């Protein structure tokens, strides 16, 4: 049903720390790997070995520059790597525009999913999503999207510590955090409160559940520090052995 459910208490989502993301694309690859066999499998690649290969990915990692660089290499510009995936919005227009009921938002945890068995592939949901979270599977003729690894987070067959989205599990810098953003006392909610977590395009009113932690303000720009004192040249002094070595090498 594309009518939105009465909002529940639980709002599962991601918090992405732009201060520590190094842009390694591990989340994108781990996501592709898991979801190629997961709930929305397959994630097809089209012409994978040809000149213009492309495919369906639920995570894409962009790089931005924030601030401006001076000509002398100074300035406070900084590179920010920006992982982009479904934000599991509280007002997901991708769900309400769906003419078939294939797109839906779960009442119990807020996860937005596609039922590929009834999707007609009209692509309207992808037009309605400001964030580009949905990608079309040309092989099956249906729309695909991030499932928040619904087949991991509730999976009794894997160790409890691994019941996390694949992108969160794999991140080598812990830039991605998973949790209940509907609970103000959860670790992710506290992180958002402490770091001033942001909604993307709040002006459109989609009320994303996922939050982005902006890069930390650096207290000072890297200042030139005085060069360490140059150690004095090795003085041969009175040491006979060193005097001999010196003579030998100076020859």
């Amino acid at each position, binding site marked *: 049903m*594309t*009518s939105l459910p009465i909002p529940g208490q639980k709002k599962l989502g991601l918090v992405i720390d732009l201060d520590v993301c190094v842009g390694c*694309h591990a989340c*994108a690859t781990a996501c592709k790997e898991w979801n190629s066999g997961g709930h929305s499998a397959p994630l097809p690649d089209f012409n994978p070995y040809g000149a*213009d*290969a*492309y*495919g369906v*990915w639920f995570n*894409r990692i*962009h*790089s*931005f*520059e*924030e*601030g401006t660089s001076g000509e002398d290499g100074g300035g*406070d*510009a*900084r590179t*920010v790597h*920006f992982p*982009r995936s479904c934000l599991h919005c509280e007002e997901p*227009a991708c769900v*309400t*525009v*769906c*003419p*078939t*009921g294939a797109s839906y938002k779960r009442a119990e945890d807020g996860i937005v999913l596609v039922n590929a068995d*009834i*999707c*007609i*592939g*009209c*692509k*309207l949901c*992808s*037009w*309605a*999503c*400001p*964030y*580009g979270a949905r*990608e*079309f599977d*040309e092989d*099956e*003729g*249906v*729309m695909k999207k991030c499932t928040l690894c619904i087949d991991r987070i509730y999976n009794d067959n894997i160790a409890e510590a691994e019941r996390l989205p694949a992108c969160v599990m794999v991140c080598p810098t812990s830039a991605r955090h998973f949790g209940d953003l509907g609970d103000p006392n959860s670790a992710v909610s506290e992180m958002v409160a402490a770091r001033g977590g*942001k909604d*993307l*395009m*709040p*002006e*459109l009113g*989609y009320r994303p559940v996922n939050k*982005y932690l*902006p*890069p930390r303000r650096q207290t000072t720009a890297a200042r030139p520090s005085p060069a360490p004192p140059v150690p004095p040249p090795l003085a041969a002094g009175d040491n006979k052995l060193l005097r001999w070595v010196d003579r030998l090498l100076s020859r």
Partner: protein
Amino acid sequence: MAGSSPAKGIRAAMHPALSIVFFTTASGCGFALLALIGIAVPLGLLPQSAGFGFAALAVATVLAVAGLASSMLHLGRPERAWRAFSQWKTSWLSREGVLSVLTFVPAAVFGLGWLVFGNTGGLVGLCGILAAVMAAGTIYCTGMIYASLKPIRQWNNGWVVPNYFALGLMGGLLLLNLIVRFWMPWPIAIPVLVLIVIAAAWGLKERYWRFIDITAAPSNVASATGLGRRGKVRMLEPPNTEENYLLKEMGFRIARKHRLRLRLIARLTGFLVPMLATLASLFTPVGLIAAAVAVLSAALGLVIERWLFFAEAKHTVMLYYGAEIV
């Protein structure tokens, strides 16, 4: 990504799928023609002959059905299209589907009553008027499919639905002005009405173009990334070197020069030529030919106008791919 093609401008616009361009133009004109006949015939404003009825209803139905069928070509799974009738509570696309099909129920009663029983009054006439109202509702839904999409500011505004109405009505009236001539030797009121509607549609289209040219985009790359505390935000690297679905669907690029030239061609073929031809159609010796020229020219103009409606519509997702504003 920007700069990889000789065409200037950032990839940011909606890809104009020909199936959708044809769907919105053809079904818009078809439903508008149906609405015009459904109202004017029961009121006795048009010829009551079965021949005229057959021709006009056939043209209206063929255009409406061909447009709807064309929209099915756009689907990844056309065999499941029937499922689109289920979500009318929230989805304008679903509402459009439901209403477009339901319109044919009173339209069929009206058509049968008129063509088989030669009756255009009473219940048959009421069905005609009902079909007209529902056909207008269908056009409204078509416009709202686009007008309800917040990520695209060129669509998410109050000018889109009036434009769909005016352009559909213009197309329907131009067709009527042509068809009616085989049964009505010298129509005056219809071509005069056509002239008024073309002027109105032209004005609305100009207002629409002006609106999208001067309004500021609510979203920019800073709001899309939550960055900007340090200053200007710009894309350094896209996430992938090849194409992807988003770039194919929403990363259409059209040069400003071409855009303006196409607007000019749309103005000429869509409005000016049909206006002059309709004016000429007021004079009987050239009436039929002029009305036909008006229809053909407007058809070309509407297709260009609708193509531009997509090619000028910028999607916010392209803020992540190098567009600074959309």
